[in-house]
């Protein structure tokens, strides 16, 4: 299935390899996605597909629309006044913006991690079990298992196993961010969206999150927005470059950073603008 696009950038939609993806090889797909904040158009004709069990990085200068695009994937833009969306965002083939789409279920399946760690002001244990409890899981044994499993997946278990009842606010910034990842994993999502997850962390905490992301992709699909191009190059399999609301180039990370096809991409990643 090939994607037809009105995008004027030849490489702004899909690499040749991606354009022939089978339906079960990708989880999220944007079709002619346009978004306006009042009169301002923040996204223009976005057409792209995100591969399953891969890390896709979205890069671009401030204000290019990358966070806006990420927020479209779990309908977080809905809460913004005067935000209008056209086009489709398909999750496993079903449009997230259909009138009968179950937003709560979709947000369970598509978790989100933000720039600043945002643990709930409660214990570590309660942070992890908060989501499962909402989804009607109440048995202690099951909740204990979920807590241990998710903290282990987020590589935090060894650091907090003896103090699960302590407040999450007492953890360091890096630990808080990993707790937020563990919390997102607790409701068994398929996709993890990350909006500059290491922007407020020191280099060691950043390293741990990056290592974690590489682990996570074995089971989950990760879409990450980052300002740090070296980070995108280190952890992602695919990279998309956005500029002024348009997808300029999308392809394998090594190709984008070593030999980009669009001059705009080259100028941005070599620091000639932005």
């Amino acid at each position, binding site marked *: 299935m090939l994607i037809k696009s009105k995008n004027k950038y030849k490489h702004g939609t899909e690499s040749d390899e991606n354009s022939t993806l089978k339906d079960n090889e990708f989880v999220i797909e944007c079709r002619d996605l346009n978004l306006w904040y009042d009169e301002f158009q923040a996204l223009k004709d976005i057409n792209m597909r995100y591969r399953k069990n891969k890390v896709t990085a979205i890069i671009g200068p401030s204000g290019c629309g990358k966070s806006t695009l990420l927020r479209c994937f779990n309908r977080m833009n809905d809460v913004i006044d005067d935000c209008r969306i056209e086009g489709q965002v398909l999750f496993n083939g079903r449009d997230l913006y259909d009138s009968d789409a179950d937003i709560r279920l979709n947000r369970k399946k598509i978790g989100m991690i933000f720039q600043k760690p945002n643990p709930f002001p409660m214990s570590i244990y309660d942070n992890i079990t908060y989501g499962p409890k909402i989804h009607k899981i109440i048995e202690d044994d099951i909740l204990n298992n979920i807590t241990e499993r998710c903290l282990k997946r987020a590589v935090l278990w060894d650091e907090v196993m003896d103090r699960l009842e302590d407040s999450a606010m007492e953890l360091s910034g890096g630990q808080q961010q990993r707790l937020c990842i563990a919390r997102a994993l607790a409701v068994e999502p398929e996709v993890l969206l990350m909006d500059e997850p290491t922007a407020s962390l020191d280099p060691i905490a950043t390293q741990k999150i990056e290592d974690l992301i590489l682990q996570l992709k074995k089971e989950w699909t990760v879409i990450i927005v980052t300002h740090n191009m070296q980070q995108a190059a280190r952890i992602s399999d695919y990279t998309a470059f956005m500029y002024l609301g348009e997808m300029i180039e999308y392809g394998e990370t090594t190709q984008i950073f*070593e030999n980009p096809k669009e001059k705009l991409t*080259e100028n941005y990643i*070599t*620091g000639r603008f932005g």
Partner: protein
Amino acid sequence: MAKEMHKELLFLKNEVSKMGHLALNMLNDSIDSLYNQDIELASDVLEKKEKIKDYDNQIEEKTLKLIMLYQPMAIDLRSLAAILKIITYLHRIGRYGKDIADVVKKHLSERQIALNLVNLRHIYEHVHSMIEDALKAFEEMNISGIKDFETRDDEVDKLRWSIFRECLTYMIEDPKYITECAHYMMFARYLERCGDHACKIAEKVHYMVTGKHIEIS
């Protein structure tokens, strides 16, 4: 920050260019010292050995520092990667010039050149123009001058075997030519290797400019 990096990258490219012309100069003077029996010129070439080594080390250090400080991408990264390889080839070209000058000074300065090896001059001229064109392509980021390198390298290879056969004939005719001819055959081999290095430089320039690897066999 990027502006500073591009300034330093430009400086580095100029240094590579200077190193390239030093290597070319060493090769040129070594051949001239051979044909003119000029020991002084051969000694000059030998003295430049340290200078070309210094260029190699300094450019390598500066390149690594740039990578460390700015973590460049795309064309900038390819340029630095190309520079790291190109300086090795240039160093070797300069060293071949030094090797020829060494033999001229030690073994050939006392005796007359008995043979008229026109092909040695020919092979040198071919190689010289290949190195010049590869450097020009690097300086101007323009690959049009290196497109015929495959054919030109074949010509160099042919000339080298022609010198081999020529020397063999002289040696069979009269054993007194054996030492001299053995040296000439080595010179031909050195020059042919310099041609190969010019091809390797051209390959790296091609990658630097287009992002695509090619092989000039």
